[in-house]
């Protein structure tokens, strides 16, 4: 257990103690703080560098959304077209359909996926045998490291028309269940794939939160005659609330990102109508059609909406008295 909690640095409860000293630190001079924190700063430097190179610098590329970007002219030589790309985008039926698909799949994932790592973490936390627990953890973490191509292939081998399940059904004359090529149930299929692949990985942060709950509270409650459910309801869940809200805020900020590769790989199996999302739209109508500006406009639209979502969710978290992304 211990190794895992250290990996998933627990936000929320465990940070409280560390933060208590913050106001005093603010008064010390910056170079004193610099020297005191230098090892921490050095440790974060690579991450900051990666973030700068691969996240912040590319943001500047959004100017192409206002250009008619031409790979042979570059950013400097391409003509400025103002809001033309956005006007075209907002008049594009296919774009709005992709937007709708994104929201629907995201909503389904929020309802069906989000609670699962929490429940898994609670279950796992109640397993006392540490060997069993480590084994289960290792097994449920593993799919996180598979690529989407592999995950979809495994699903195809299991549930596809020529897969294990349908072969058995067919041999027993029970017909076939074409879940891999059925557009109407596609949103549940992709959610199931996401659960299989990521839910195990998602429990890390919740396990960390669970480890931070004060054990003496359980002992006191047990002494007072509280049963398992009452302890879960009055101690465990309140103890995890900060983390759950934080994860929810982050999830909402990512609501418009529902998996590019996963959709790309399965697009032809269920058709565009079921599988086109904002990211694949940007790819097919921007990158693949050599219409980078159009794709950039769609991406910028998505980015701005995501920012609004995350800020709104954060405000909601504050309204409920939680930290959210940062403390007010």
């Amino acid at each position, binding site marked *: 257990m211990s190794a895992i909690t250290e990996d998933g640095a627990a936000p929320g409860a465990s940070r409280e103690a560390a933060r208590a000293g913050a106001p005093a630190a603010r008064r010390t001079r910056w170079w004193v703080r610099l020297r005191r924190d230098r090892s921490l700063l050095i440790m974060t430097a690579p991450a900051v560098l990666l973030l700068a190179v691969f996240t912040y610098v590319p943001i500047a590329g959004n100017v192409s959304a206002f250009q008619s970007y*031409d*790979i*042979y002219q*570059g950013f400097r030589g391409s003509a400025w077209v103002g809001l033309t790309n956005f006007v075209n985008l907002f008049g594009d039926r*296919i774009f709005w359909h992709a937007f709708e698909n994104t929201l629907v799949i995201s909503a389904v994932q929020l309802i069906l996926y989000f609670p699962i790592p929490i429940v898994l973490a609670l279950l796992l936390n109640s397993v006392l045998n540490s060997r069993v627990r480590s084994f289960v953890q290792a097994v449920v973490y593993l799919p996180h490291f598979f690529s989407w191509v592999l995950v979809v*292939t495994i699903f*195809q081998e299991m549930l*596809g*028309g*020529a*897969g294990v399940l*349908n*072969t058995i059904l*067919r*041999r027993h004359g029970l017909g076939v269940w*074409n879940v*891999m*090529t059925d*557009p109407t149930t596609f949103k549940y299929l992709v959610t199931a794939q996401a659960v299989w692949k990521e839910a195990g990985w998602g429990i890390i942060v919740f396990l960390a939160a669970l480890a931070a709950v004060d054990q003496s509270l359980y002992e006191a409650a047990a002494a007072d005659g509280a049963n398992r459910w009452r302890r879960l309801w009055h101690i465990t869940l309140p103890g995890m609330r900060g983390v759950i809200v934080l994860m929810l805020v982050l999830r909402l900020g990512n609501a418009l990102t529902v998996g590019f590769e996963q959709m*790309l790989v*399965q*697009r*032809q*199996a*269920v*058709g*565009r*109508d079921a599988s086109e999302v904002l990211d694949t739209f940007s790819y*097919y*109508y921007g*990158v*693949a*059609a*050599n*219409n*980078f500006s*159009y794709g950039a406009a769609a991406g910028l639209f998505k980015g701005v909406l995501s920012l609004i979502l995350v800020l709104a969710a954060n405000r909601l978290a504050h309204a409920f008295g939680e930290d959210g992304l940062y403390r007010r």
Partner: protein
Amino acid sequence: MPPEASPSLPHGLSRRGLLSAAAVAVGATVASPLLSACSGKKSGGPGTTSKSDVDRALPAYLANNSVNADVPSVTGVNGAISDPCFLSYPTSPVTTVSGLVGSGGSYTTMTPLWGAIPASSGNAYYATVNKAIGATLKLQPSDGNTYGDALPPVFAANKLPDWIMIPGWLNVQLNLGEAMTTQFADLTPYLAGDKAKQYPNLANVPPAAWAAGVWDGKLYGIPSYPSAAVFNGAYFYRKDLLDSAGVSVTGFKSADDLAGLGKELTNAKGGVWAFDDLFGQSAAYVSQLFQFPNHWGIDGSGKLIYKYETEGIVEALNWYVKLVKAGYVHPDAIANNNQNAKQRFWSGKVLIQVDGTGAWDGLDAQSGVAANPGYVRQALPLLSPDGAKPPTIELGNGAAMFSYLNKKLSAAQIKECLAIANYLAAPYGSAEWLKVNFGDEGVDYTMKDGNPVLNAQGNKEVATTFQFLACPPAATVPKNGFTQVAKDYAAWQGDAVKHAVKPLFFDMNIAEPSQYSAINKPVDDTIDDVRFGRKPISAFTDAVDTWRKQGGDALRTFYDGIRSKYGTGQ
């Protein structure tokens, strides 16, 4: 080793079919990968060239027939000529290049590779070829499947290497017509007419291959895998398994003859289906069966029509959806799991498939025999929609891929690169060919039954790299000792050339207005919806109506202009 990694690319053109299959697998092509003819940016800028101007830019043709083919080329119709087939390598290969080749220059290159990318450092194969050409070509192959995505940043960052290969099917996506004058060296002053005679191996490349490297009246591209028998694909069957099932395809004439095998060969309970995907992305393969063009064509009244507007594609959709609904098509093919199509065929889970012609060689036979000792791949006879009309097969450009030299190179450097290209283009049967394709005997290959075969080191080091920069005319040769496969392939090609038809705008580079680059995608998506039975055929006709309004009709006007000004290339 995947077939693409082969050093001795067999039937050059066939490779294009292979590649188009790869493109289908990743779903990354905007339009059909076969739309290699046109490109350009803005409203029909530079690009197109009239026939007489093309002729002025072309190198003189000096055929080299020093090695006699075991199965000679068959001259078919409409300029199609099958590749010569050689069953064993000459015991004393001739030398075609004398004296110094390069003058010690060093050049960066960029080529795609479909297969495992070999290590560059300590690569004895790279080193021995570089030594032979007297210069250093720095080889850095990129993944072929994502090559189209890797190129735009290279152009945008102005990081173009000295020598680069760009497959023709990326021309539209890259607006390559715009790049020609600004990025690449004009080779006309070095190669046009008799000037090519100082590079005899380049002069041995037929004019039809060079023609597709001409943009705006000037020669830019050096052909890779030139052939006068470029066909995008063939319908294949497992001869061994059909024989044991007592099924014969002899005398097959129509698409319905093929469909008729569905019921007989499908045994879903046993995990065997008659067909894999028979359609291709954007109908690229099925157009052969139903005889509609892969791009623009002319209807009975002389009007230009796009493939979407033909009766043939509607027939094809109706024909295919019946096979899908009847359950004769492997479910993984319906789920677009195309990267495993070859494995399904090798293991006998499907008995009939369509693939690029490059799928049919000794490397395929080796993989097939590994899965199934009796494995035999054979092509079906060419078919027509009703069996009454004679079958046809569309001829591709004289070369599907071209390499280009950077405009920044000096005249002396361009001459050095062309001398190197002349070495790389040494024909089959020469000492140079052996060096370029196999490295050194005893190091990377050994001679076995009269043919070079890569050894363990060769399998790690040798990959199709230099060949993408310059190449002799394609030849059919045995690989891994499968002589019969080479003979069968040569026989099929010898028949196919007799049915070849030239598509509209054959061998012409056309700068298509770029604002219409995305209009095909919604139609192609709808084609998938209809052929897999998710939507009725009316959805397709609706999508085509929208396509016309969004730019299809405008493109027709554009191509009408090209037709009246420059002709049809046929």
